[in-house]
Every structure is written in C-alpha cells, then in structure tokens.
C-alpha cells in the first residue's frame, strides 16, 4: 500500500474503501469482458462478422490492458484482488458479455458488444465524477480508460447504424490513452 497516497485521497474527502471496491468491480468487468470477447471474436465470421473482427479484437486487448492498469492502483490504495477467480467474476461491475443464443446472428453479437462498452463508459464516468479534483491519480487512470471505452462504443455503435462518431480504427499500437500506465 502507498500509505501517504491513500491518506491524501482520504483527506480530500473520498471514501477510499468505496473507491477501491469500485475499482475492483471494474477490474473484474475488464478481465471478464476480455474473456467473453474472446468467444465473441471467434464467432465473428462470414461476410458480416469478419468486418467486425478486427475492432472486436482491439477492444478485447484494450480491455485486458485496462485490467492491468487498474490493478496497481487497487493495491496502492490498500485494496486487493479476491483469491477466488469465481468470486472475482461474480462481482463484475458489468453483466457478462455472453455469446447470443444464435452465434451466427452478427447483429446480436454487435448489440452485446455495444452494451458492454456502454456499461464501461457509465462506470468510468462514475469513477471520474467521484475522484475529480480529489484523487488525481485515480482520476487520470479512469479518464484514460474512459477515453478508450468511448471509442469502443463509437466503433460498435457505427456498425449498428446509430450515426457517425468521427472515429477511425486504431492505427498502430493499442491503448493510446492507457499505455502510459502500462510502462
């Protein structure tokens, strides 16, 4: 634990135990999403599915990066991950992004993907709101993740025909916002 770092956050008026619980739940959401997206990506086949596969893969890898980036902050603030993987899965901040009943229904997969991203966008907005001006390091991290989650949502939303977002696919490395926390 980073004792003084935690004290600074407490003194700024943040309930650190609540914050840590939220970070753990969101870390669980990231790692479980990474797992479920693996299955979704595998099933994105055919003319429609293949066109989605690459952005689903980028979102999958970036969600894993988010998990990796969250873990040090959880421990800095005095938290820890559960020993039991099943417990970790079940406390996720977002519902499991399960493969739809009909795996060949690409639109149904797309709806699962966009709902997962929307849950994440809400979750990190919530953490940003709780930490803004109080816990600079968690805010910086949550904002970086939020930036990537918003882009994921935009990609999938465009495929659903909900309107343009102005975003492109990644060109080059993944996690342009979060990579500074992974070095």
């Amino acid at each position, binding site marked *: 634990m980073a004792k003084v770092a935690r004290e600074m956050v407490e003194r700024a008026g943040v309930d650190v135990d609540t914050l840590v619980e939220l970070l753990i*739940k969101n870390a669980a959401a990231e790692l479980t999403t990474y797992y479920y997206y693996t299955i979704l990506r595998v099933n994105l086949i055919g003319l429609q599915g293949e066109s989605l596969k690459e952005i689903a893969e980028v979102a999958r890898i970036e969600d894993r990066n988010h998990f990796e980036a969250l873990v040090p902050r959880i421990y800095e603030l005095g938290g820890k991950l559960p020993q039991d993987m099943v417990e970790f899965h079940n406390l996720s*901040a*977002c*519902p499991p992004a399960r493969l739809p009943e009909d795996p060949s229904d690409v639109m149904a997969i797309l709806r699962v993907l966009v709902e997962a991203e929307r849950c994440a966008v*809400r*979750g990190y*907005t*919530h953490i940003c*709101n709780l930490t803004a001006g109080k816990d600079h390091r968690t805010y910086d991290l949550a904002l970086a993740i939020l930036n990537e989650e918003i882009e994921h949502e935009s990609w999938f939303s465009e495929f659903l025909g909900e309107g343009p977002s102005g975003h492109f696919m990644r060109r080059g490395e993944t996690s342009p916002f979060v990579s500074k926390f992974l070095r």
Partner: protein
Amino acid sequence: MREFTLRELVRFNGQDGRPAYVAYQGKVYDLTGSFLWRGGRHQVLHRAGQDLTRTLGQAPHGPELLEKFPVVGTLKGGEDAEDDRGEP
C-alpha cells in the same frame, strides 16, 4: 397496483432473498432481475429499497435504464418523494 410507503419500500432491499425495488418519480420498479443490482446494491453506493428520484440525477445514466424493468407499484407521496438517504 400496490401503493408503497417509504417505510414499506425499505423492506424490498434485495438482501436475504427479498426482491430489490427502487422508486423513481412516484413509480416503484422491480430490479430483482438486474445483474447490476445483485444483492440489492448498485455501483457500491446505492441500495435497493429506497427512493432514487434525486440521486438518479447524479448518475451517469438516465431513467431509461430503469424503464426496462417492471413497475410493481407506486410510491405514496408522489413524484417528489424522498431521496435515498438512510440505510435500510
């Protein structure tokens, strides 16, 4: 449709097998089936069995997410009932 008082609503806190109900603008919603309200808790900070009319304004989403769930009654006191202060 059943009319709940705040005192009655508190019992539907989603714990120990009880349903998870919340009120919003005078309507009582059953969130028992929501993954995000398991155990009667939502995003660590919020509890079932309460009126979230004021709290929802600070949430990173609007009432449209509540509207996916069944309405099981109304809250006595109308649309401007209490916020979610006070633990069940």
